[in-house]
């Protein structure tokens, strides 16, 4: 193997013992060099971890560089497009005043609305997906309500629950609750009937089949549904904080708009993005922990 790699000349440059070099050594013996790139673009095939991570970092860095260049080029007034440096500076000032408070207020709202929606939406979705009678009753009305824009409920929420925390949580709740129901019902319906039949022939009652087969079987996709909906909950935050808030990230963004403080708008959006990413990582990690057979 080694002597072959050396004999191949150019292939030895990458060091004869890295997998890539070995790969190349074998490849160049059988195929033309042009084929080398193709392994990265094979349908649904995994690629080396190093390449993956590099691409992920590039995905962040390239837009950042583009932003930096664009804001410095003078093509766009910095009033509308601040430089990354401005945004960091503004973020720093914010960090020394009310950032912690704003962040905490927003997290509490998003998590409250989301948890409430999940606690009610998941069981309802499970029942809709399991029983045709429940589906018949809830699904059409749910599909109807689901298309109503959450923002349009703001005036109603103010009338009903006032301008306190309740209405803000309610907006986030409305934003994700109906989606969770549909998505959960869908994955529950996809639990193979043969699993259910197998459990029945082992002596399972309907309740046991629901608990031990349908619930357990749809748990992995269910965690993914929660992950996606947590993202959506954050997108409803700004809408929710349009309602008479005096702190919160969404509130700060709206406030900054009033004073043409684009740096703060950028900083706020980026911070929400980072927090969202952290929640996403949490759910991914949870998935890994809970469902080892899928990883």
């Amino acid at each position, binding site marked *: 193997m080694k002597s072959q790699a050396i004999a191949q000349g150019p292939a030895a440059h990458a060091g004869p013992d890295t997998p890539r070099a070995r790969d190349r050594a074998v490849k160049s013996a059988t195929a033309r060099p042009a084929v080398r790139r193709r392994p990265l673009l094979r349908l649904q095939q995994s690629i080396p971890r190093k390449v993956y991570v590099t691409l992920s970092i590039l995905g962040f860095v390239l837009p950042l560089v583009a932003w930096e260049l664009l804001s410095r080029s003078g093509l766009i007034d910095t009033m509308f497009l601040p430089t990354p440096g401005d945004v960091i500076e503004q973020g720093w000032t914010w960090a020394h005043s009310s950032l912690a408070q704003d962040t905490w207020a927003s997290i509490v709202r998003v998590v409250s609305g989301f948890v409430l929606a999940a606690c009610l939406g998941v069981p309802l979705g499970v029942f809709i997906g399991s029983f045709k009678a429940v589906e018949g009753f809830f699904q059409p009305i749910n599909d109807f309500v689901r298309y109503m824009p959450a923002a349009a409920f703001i005036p109603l929420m103010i009338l009903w629950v006032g301008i306190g925390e309740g209405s803000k949580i309610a907006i986030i709740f409305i934003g994700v609750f109906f989606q969770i129901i549909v998505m959960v019902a869908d994955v529950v319906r996809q639990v193979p009937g*043969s699993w259910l*039949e197998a459990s*029945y022939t082992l*002596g399972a*009652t309907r309740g046991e089949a629901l608990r*031990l087969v349908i619930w*357990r079987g749809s748990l992995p996709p269910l965690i993914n549904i929660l992950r996606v909906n947590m993202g959506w909950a954050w997108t409803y935050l700004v809408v929710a904080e349009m309602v008479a808030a005096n702190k919160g990230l969404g509130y700060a963004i709206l406030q900054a708009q009033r004073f043409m403080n684009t740096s703060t708008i950028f900083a706020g959006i980026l911070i929400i993005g980072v927090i969202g990413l952290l929640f996403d990582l949490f759910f991914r990690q949870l998935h890994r922990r809970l469902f080892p057979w899928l990883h």
Partner: protein
Amino acid sequence: MSDQILHIESVEKRYPDGRGGQQTVLDNVSLRVEPGEFVTVIGASGCGKSTLLRLVAGLEHAQGGVIRLGDRVVDQPGADRGMVFQHYTLFPWLTVKQNVMFSLELGANMRAIETESELSGLVDRAYALIEMMGLEDRRDHYPNQLSGGMQQRVAIARALLSRPRVLLMDEPFGALDAQTREVMHDLILQLFAVEPTTVMFVTHDVEEAAYLGDRVVVLAPHPGRIDGIHHMAWGREREPALKLDPEFTKVKGQLTERIRETSGMEADHKLIERMTALGRRMQGNAAR
């Protein structure tokens, strides 16, 4: 013992044919399976073998006739009739051990257990079954880490754990390659020698049916009905050499003949002959 006889009496099963009418899938099927007997069911594809088994399992309801296990009428699935399906039905989120012990999580089985030692007896039994299936070093693996043959062995162990009175097997080895299947045959024979169980075993493999069964039931299609029941003359102790025995080969031929005749496969054979002739002509053309 007589309270364990499986009686299938004049069962009739119809399905909607998709054009507003009804299609009779099983017509007046009667069969009596003695305790400890191994009955295999063969027949052409679509003749209603799975339907018959699913009726006994209680997963389907018949329009006519009655199925009785002992003195109880079968009207729903239950732990007294275990089933092994053709496709893999292990729960992917449970390990081999947990899959085999699944029935210990079910009230129906646990209510029957009165003492602590009975429970630990069942746990021991689970380990013993896993070992008998040659899976002791895979106990903590998940199903997606197992080959198809291993998965079916786990499914068999799972179905046997709570000692069902009847074990129903629907082409359990249908998806396995020929060699694995041969191994499974001898494993099954060994298993039931150690632990006599009433078995109804559906297959479309004539050799499998004759090698495993005490009796072989031939189902005829359109509508599904019993064409004949054949006693296998060889005793329970069977080994691979039997498959080469002239007597065995003869019976195999007879069974195949019955299936062919009842299913009107003559037409298929004519078609195959025509296609071979056609193929030869095309080869001739290509050579020229």
